[in-house]
């Protein structure tokens, strides 16, 4: 047990205290008064210059929320959240109206620079060579929408996207500029009455990203949103809506960090994806919210509702997530396979360390004919954390020929953590084919010794084994993110690496 013991000790020592994004940015901000009421909802709507229908939508959600209770079925424990003790709106105080990126508060730009997020329109060339025969100008670029506390501070590459007809802007702007699209799709995947946290989000969401890809367009670059919570005692409630029209394709990345604070902060986001006929959406997340310190104090409560609707025939939605942060994660990116021959995918790496609690998984709801789905989940628990996979695969009566393949693997590091798998599988017609595989294993002392005998340090050995364990999922990430994610995995488990 000695080798494993050492690893456990090391993991315990370093874990969450090594959060690298824990700095705070000192800027003046404008906040709504603490607490939640109809007035606050009106305040937010007014701040955003929203049309009347939007305010009505929010108020309806708020009234609905008052009648709801917080769900308790997840395998997570946390003290009761006082929803009246939170700020629901915080925005960096603008010095004047912004017209270009150079006018953004330099402190905010510095923050993103520290986080490694390129807000200036610089093509990312690192390690990516232009395709053979392709023109050098076809370098891969990533358009970024940066959300600071509740407000989008910058969206890059807007012009270039416009040329392709792609709309990529803060959702607050989209509500004003493209009301017909927003009205049609907002809440059509996650209705305002969906669940406690989604309903709360519907009432108070302040910003987020909006993407519309017109028919037949392949979005020319990766789209990306970067979320940062800075203010104390604020909740961040972002709302993302992505619509891929017929025959289009878009790949979207999302990253998150927050400063290190002793209080817990609430993050309740809603993401809605709509894929019409023959469209494909690939949604990747690297979630690295502050996980709390080594005693389990502080950290983000991450209650997120993410759902994709394969509304058209032959459409495809693929979720890939690398979850390493947050004190509590409650998150089930799902696919509604409504169109015939549509396909849903879920690839997940969830790492918990320290006192983190993860309850995450997916729902694959097969409604159309010959729909298929694939779930690959890799849970890694270390320290005193609890890591739960919760998943639902269901085929309705008319969903003939539905197919699903699920593989859930859990890896335990040490003997004070837990891994749990809670799959629900329902087939309501006899032509469905569902496969489910699950394994739970520990990093064995023999494997570690084998690696160190070959000259690897203890940390390198753990990193190697874990990266092997999650390889199937890492391969699904866009290249730039895969490298980042691999580093992140090493950091969240070892600290001494990197």
């Amino acid at each position, binding site marked *: *047990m*000695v*080798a494993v013991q*050492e690893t456990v000790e090391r993991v315990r020592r370093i874990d969450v205290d090594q959060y690298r994004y824990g700095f705070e940015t000192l800027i003046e901000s404008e906040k709504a008064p603490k607490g939640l009421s109809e007035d606050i909802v009106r305040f937010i709507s007014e701040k955003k210059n929203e049309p009347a229908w939007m305010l009505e939508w929010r108020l309806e959600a708020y009234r609905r929320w008052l009648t709801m209770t917080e769900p308790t079925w997840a395998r997570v424990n946390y003290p009761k959240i006082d929803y009246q003790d939170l700020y629901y709106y915080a925005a960096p105080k603008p010095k004047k109206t912004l017209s270009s990126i150079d006018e953004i508060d330099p402190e905010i730009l510095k923050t993103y620079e520290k986080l490694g997020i390129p807000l200036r329109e610089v093509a990312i060339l690192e390690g990516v060579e232009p395709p053979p025969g392709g023109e050098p100008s076809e370098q891969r670029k990533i358009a970024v929408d940066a959300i600071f506390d509740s407000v989008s501070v910058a969206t890059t590459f807007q012009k270039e996207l416009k040329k392709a007809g792609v709309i990529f802007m803060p959702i607050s702007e989209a509500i004003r500029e493209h009301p017909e699209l927003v009205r049609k799709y907002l809440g059509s995947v996650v209705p305002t009455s969906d669940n406690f946290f989604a309903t709360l989000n519907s009432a108070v969401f302040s910003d987020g990203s909006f993407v519309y890809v017109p028919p037949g367009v392949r979005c020319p670059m990766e789209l990306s949103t970067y979320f940062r919570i800075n203010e104390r005692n604020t909740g961040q409630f972002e709302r993302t809506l992505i619509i891929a029209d017929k025959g289009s394709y878009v790949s979207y990345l999302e990253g998150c960090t927050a400063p290190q604070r002793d209080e817990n902060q609430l993050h309740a986001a809603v993401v809605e994806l709509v894929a019409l006929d023959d469209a494909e959406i690939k949604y990747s997340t690297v979630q690295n919210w502050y996980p709390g310190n080594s005693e389990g104090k502080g950290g983000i409560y991450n209650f997120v509702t993410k759902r994709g609707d394969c509304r058209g025939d032959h459409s495809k939605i693929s979720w890939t997530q690398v979850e390493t942060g947050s004190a509590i994660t409650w998150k089930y990116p799902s696919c509604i396979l409504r169109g015939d021959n549509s396909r849903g995918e879920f690839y997940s790496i969830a790492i918990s360390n320290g006192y983190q609690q993860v309850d995450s998984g997916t729902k694959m709801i097969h409604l159309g004919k010959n729909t298929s789905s694939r779930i690959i989940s890799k849970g890694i628990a270390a320290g005193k954390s609890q890591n739960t996979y919760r998943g639902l695969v269901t085929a309705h009566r008319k969903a003939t020929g539905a197919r699903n393949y699920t593989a859930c693997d859990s890896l335990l590091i040490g003997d004070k953590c837990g891994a749990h798998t809670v799959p629900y599988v329902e087939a309501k017609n006899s032509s469905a084919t569902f496969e489910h595989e699950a394994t739970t294993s520990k990093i*064995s*002392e*023999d*494997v570690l*010794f*084998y*690696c*160190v*005998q*070959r*000259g*690897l*340090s*203890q940390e*390198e050995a753990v990193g*190697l*084994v874990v*990266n*092997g*364990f*999650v*390889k*199937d999922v890492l391969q699904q990430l866009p290249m730039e993110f895969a490298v980042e994610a691999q580093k992140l995995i090493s950091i969240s488990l070892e600290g001494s690496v990197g």
Partner: protein
Amino acid sequence: MVQTIRNILVGVQVWPFAITGFVAIAGAFIALIGAFASSLDVMEFGKAAAGFGAMGFFGWLLFLIALRSPRPEGKKMTALLEVKDLQVRVEDREILHGLSLTVNPGEVHAIMGPNGSGKSTLSHVIAGKPGYEVTGGQILFRGEDLLEMAPDERAAKGVFLAFQYPVEIPGVATMNFLRTALNAQRKARGESEYSTPDFLKKVREVAKSLNIPQDMLKRGVNVGFSGGEKKRNEILQMALFEPSLCILDEMDSGLDIDALRIAADGVNALRSPERAMVVITHYQRLLNYIVPDYVHVMAKGRVVKSGDKHLALELEAAGYAPFEHAA
């Protein structure tokens, strides 16, 4: 060499140098003064003194060098591996009770013995596997205390253990593993890392000689490998890392005759005057292929008899029972 010079300089032996050296320099100085003063007597005196001092200085140096020149038995001073009176416990049970073994560069030692005699324990303790408590004795590797080093340090110094049961590491391509490990060792030794083309060339060469197909290197480490493939993968690593001490733990277990021959050929190709091997086995059979210079019989945690390769044949005939009684 550094050690020798230090020994020469340290202690009483430094005084003759100091005195004769001083006389030589002072003589030369006096001779110089004499030359300037045009005094023949002074110059002659200085020359004589300088000559006398220099003769003393170099004479003493020659004497010391003669005294310290390596003698035939001096070779033992630079043994590759020295295990001295090693006592090892696992939990509350003592497994090795005072085991001693000396291995010089270029030698192949076979360690034979029945199950439970402590053969594998010895190999694990040398490689630094956790879970064993050394309660007495020491292990020196080129004169350095091996027990003070972490297992990965030992590997970088040139200690290689070919496992009886090589582990599987899913998702980690063999090629990637080899490269990570080799570069980790090189880095620990302060050497530059291999470039990708150099590395690939090297691996392909070695793999070819061991009859290892390229696609095996793309698969996860040992995942889905047959017994023979796993052992060949161990020898591949041995050839790649170029260790100075190879410990082969029950290399013959689970191999048929053909697989055994390929593995043994691989090992024999690695025999060299700088490299020593310790071959641990139950059966004499393996020693037909890898012919040892020395054979040691272990029983109940000790070496009970040592001899040359003929001892293995004796064992084959008589079995281990007589030795167990001797222990």
